[in-house]
């Protein structure tokens, strides 16, 4: 733990209540509740209708999935800009698979989508890890390259909802214990990834690497293995997000997922992941993604034209990184003061 938090001693001295209040997750939860409450007060059907609450929970799932993948990569002090293009390829691969192989089990298609994403992520990881080239450049290149492959492959075609089996289209709406299956899947994935990052050795190693690569290497961690793992995971999650996209919208063309990479980075940053790596939690990122996606749903209801949505997203990114910086500086000041008092 001390590796990941440079100011850990100060944090350790606080009660759990103070920690809870100070955590990014709590402020995001408050923000989300406020947003939903205000929106619902203006237009009750926003949540208090049959489709309303389900839509509210369903729309953000795509962004949540790619954002937690992006977060894993950012935590290792890298960045993955290719997630939008990977999502597109996975969506179309799954769509054509459903169309060409009637009766194919849904779970198999999901696995194929995730494997395709993992493979594309692995290429990113190999290029970054073995050539020691900055991931910004590599994934910028694969952002273009994967999108280009998608355009070549898909051309002007698009996925028709008649290609998809009814069972698959129902994933986004069919309730299991009152909640759509898709939501269960995303919830389980978030919990699994979050548990892995906080409690598993490899997860902590990812934080250690991002916190201080030199120290992590000296300590004996394999930088290559960790980077490969992070990019592969990000690719697989983008692939899964492609399936979620397909289940929700039941369509898709060569432009699916354009610009998602920035939204994913935004969600990670808003969720408390430092862009220089080494800190942030998966729960925070999932909440950040939920918040950003809900804003875009709520804006039209609040009377703001949806055109302004992107400006607001930008404002939240800038605001979140500034807030992080201010908190960091104030924490260091307090640590110094307490240090000199002793």
């Amino acid at each position, binding site marked *: 733990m001390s590796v990941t938090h440079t100011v850990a001693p100060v944090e350790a001295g606080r009660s759990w209540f103070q920690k809870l209040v100070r955590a990014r997750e709590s402020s995001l939860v408050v923000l989300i509740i406020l947003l939903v409450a205000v929106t619902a007060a203006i237009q009750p059907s926003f949540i208090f209708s049959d489709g309303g609450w389900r839509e509210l929970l369903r729309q953000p799932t795509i962004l949540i999935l790619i954002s937690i993948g992006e977060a894993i990569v950012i935590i290792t002090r890298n960045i993955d800009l290719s997630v939008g293009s990977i999502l597109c390829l996975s969506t179309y691969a799954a769509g054509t698979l459903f169309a060409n192989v009637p009766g194919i089990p849904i779970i198999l298609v999901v696995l194929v989508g995730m494997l395709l994403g993992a493979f594309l992520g692995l290429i990113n990881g190999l*290029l970054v890890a073995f050539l020691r080239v900055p991931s910004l450049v590599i994934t910028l290149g694969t952002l273009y390259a994967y999108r280009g492959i998608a355009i*070549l492959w898909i051309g002007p075609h698009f996925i028709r909802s008649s290609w998809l089996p009814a069972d698959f289209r129902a994933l986004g709406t069919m309730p299991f214990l009152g909640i759509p299956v898709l939501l269960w899947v995303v919830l389980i994935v978030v919990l699994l990834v979050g548990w892995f990052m906080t409690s598993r050795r490899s997860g902590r190693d990812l934080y250690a690497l991002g916190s201080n690569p030199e120290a992590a290497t000296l300590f004996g961690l394999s930088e290559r293995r960790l980077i490969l793992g992070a990019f592969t995971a990000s690719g697989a999650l983008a692939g899964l997000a492609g399936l979620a996209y397909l289940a929700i919208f039941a369509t898709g063309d060569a432009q699916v997922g354009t610009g998602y990479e920035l939204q994913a980075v935004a969600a990670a940053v808003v969720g408390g992941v430092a862009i220089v790596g080494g800190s942030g939690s998966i729960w925070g990122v999932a909440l950040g993604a939920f918040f950003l996606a809900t804003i875009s749903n709520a804006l039209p209801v609040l009377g703001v034209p949806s055109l302004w949505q992107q400006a*607001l997203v930008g404002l939240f990114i*800038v605001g979140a990184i500034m807030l992080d910086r201010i908190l960091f500086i104030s924490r260091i000041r307090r640590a110094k003061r307490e240090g000199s008092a002793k």
Partner: protein
Amino acid sequence: MTATTTTTIIEGARYARHGRPFWRRALLRPESVIVLAIVVLLLIGTFAIPFFAQAYTYQTMILNAGPVLLMLLPVTLVIVTSDIDLSVGSILGFSSALFGLSYQAGVPLWLAAVIGVLAGAFVGVLNGVLVTAIGLPSLAVTIGTLALFRGIAVGLLGTTSITKFPPEIPRFLSSPMWGLPFPPVTIAIVVLAILFGVLLHFTPFGRGIFAIGLSIENAAFSGVAVNRTRFILFVLSGIIAGATGVYFTLQYSNAIGTNGFGFELQVVTAIVLGGVSIWGGKGTLFGALAGGLLIAALNKTLQLAGIGSDTISIVTGVALIFSVVVASIAGFISRRRRSKASALVAAGA
């Protein structure tokens, strides 16, 4: 005895540093490879593609690449300091929106243009303050302002577009100058390239830029005004992107919220392709410009070859990856050779 040993070491060191004659070193530079690639590409186009070998091809090539070529000049300097500015495409859109809206509201054209440039400068100042005064990483800041100002541009103009500009301006901007196959923007590119080139390579300010890119601490200890330099570069980047926004709007006679969308990626691609290290401290302005021209030539060749604009993104992406891969391998080889050479020197001494 001591004197001769010292001489041997110096001779040896000089040998290790300048082992090959000048022309071979010049040929091995990334810039030369890029220029060679451009020449080969144009030759292939001239001989293999019908209608390639005419003035119109070159004129439209420059015309299409103009905005990216303009914006990459200051961004190259930003990248040499190991910062990055991803907001230039959005600044273009923001400036275009303000320029178009104020012109539509009856502001004289020149004043509207000034407003557009100032809008760019404003974003540049904001980036600079956030990066230098508050100390935020430039990658995060400019991703934020990328989303923010694209959002404002789209929000301001909505789904409308402003197209009522004096028709003689776009006609002038896209016509060749003095019978040469170059549109007027060429002058701006050449003049600014010379200015930025001199600034980067022949002034103390420019040496400061390289020093910051190599090590920000060392630069600060050597007396480089680190934050002032970085701030100035972000503002310059904003001003040029703002001016490009005005130019872009006039060239296509169209102000819409999506003007310049995705240009930041083309700018960074061109710069990295041109041999500028994304880690900072290494690269030349000429290389970056050559990288931009190579992408322009690639686009034009593919377009005239009838391969279509679809493949361009693949080619751009692969070219980008390829260039960093080659640079990485070349760096590895030269490091090995250098360490061998210095081992020889050590043995000789």
